[in-house]
């Protein structure tokens, strides 16, 4: 695992929800690719936001570069334009590198079926149990999505029984602690 991106750390922060992690990462890169277009106060706010989000998204090197940029704002004497250009270029470069690594990590994720497919309660319960047996955060995330999506009616007793009492969040954290096979 490179230091640029800590996928297990991000997964543990979103309780193993791979879909959410993917959305957050895609949103981050979509929003923060245009660093060079901001300036002045906008740039200061943008750098701060990038630092905070990158830290939470486990984009470690991006967060470090953003912190370095922010530190320049309070340094005495004030940073020169040349220093700023170097710092911003480093930040931009690290965003690009992190984006490439994130793409690689996401592309390597195992394919898991994300729909319940209209199966009966008994079949779904079996499939849910199989997913949970994989001890994999991606599978756990799908199981949780199913659990949330399945209507609570009399026909779903088998599913409800299959997952009753299971603390998905706690299970995700446990799995994250063990590693998930993607790194």
């Amino acid at each position, binding site marked *: 695992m490179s230091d640029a991106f800590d996928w297990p750390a991000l997964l543990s*922060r*979103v309780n193993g929800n791979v879909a959410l992690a993917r959305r*957050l990462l895609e*949103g981050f890169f979509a929003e923060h690719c245009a660093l060079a277009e901001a300036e002045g106060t906008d740039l200061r706010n943008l750098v701060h*936001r990038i*630092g*905070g989000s990158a*830290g*939470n998204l486990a984009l470690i090197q991006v967060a470090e570069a953003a*912190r370095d940029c922010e530190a320049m704002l309070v340094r005495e004497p004030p940073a020169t334009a040349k220093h700023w250009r170097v710092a911003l270029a480093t930040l931009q470069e690290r965003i690009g590198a992190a984006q490439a690594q994130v793409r690689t990590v996401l592309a390597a994720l195992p394919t898991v079926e994300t729909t319940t497919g209209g199966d009966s309660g008994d079949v779904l319960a079996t499939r849910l149990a199989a997913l949970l047996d994989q001890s994999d955060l991606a599978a756990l995330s799908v199981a949780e999505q199913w659990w949330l999506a399945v209507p609570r009616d009399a026909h779903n007793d088998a599913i409800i029984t299959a997952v009753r009492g299971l603390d998905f969040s706690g299970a995700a954290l446990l799995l994250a602690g063990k590693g998930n096979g993607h790194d």
Partner: protein
Amino acid sequence: MVMTDPIRILIVDDEPANIQILHAAVSILGPVQFARSGEQALKLATANPPDVVLLDVVMPDLDGFAVTRALRADPATAGMMVVLVSGSAADADVERGLECGADDFIAKPVAPALIRQRVRLLAELARRRR
């Protein structure tokens, strides 16, 4: 300590990704509201008072320090537990936050288990005070 009562939480951050990360960490504790600005946070805190506010420090317009002071100045919101959540945990920032009336200070990136535990403890403390 086991707390079974839901804890009402207000998350305030101008960055949607940070809101979602915090939401993932604390949503199992109880109902969660969101605000993306200090002004919106003050309106929500008055209209639908939370037990605990998780408040970003650096935001455009009204920052976390100003929001904390405003919450403390209003008798209707003065008793809420306020946790400042910041990318900078420098001593000066923590000191300023506590001077403004914050109950706690947590650095980003957030550790989900830690923030849940802090929220539980603060909510329990608030309930004992009442």
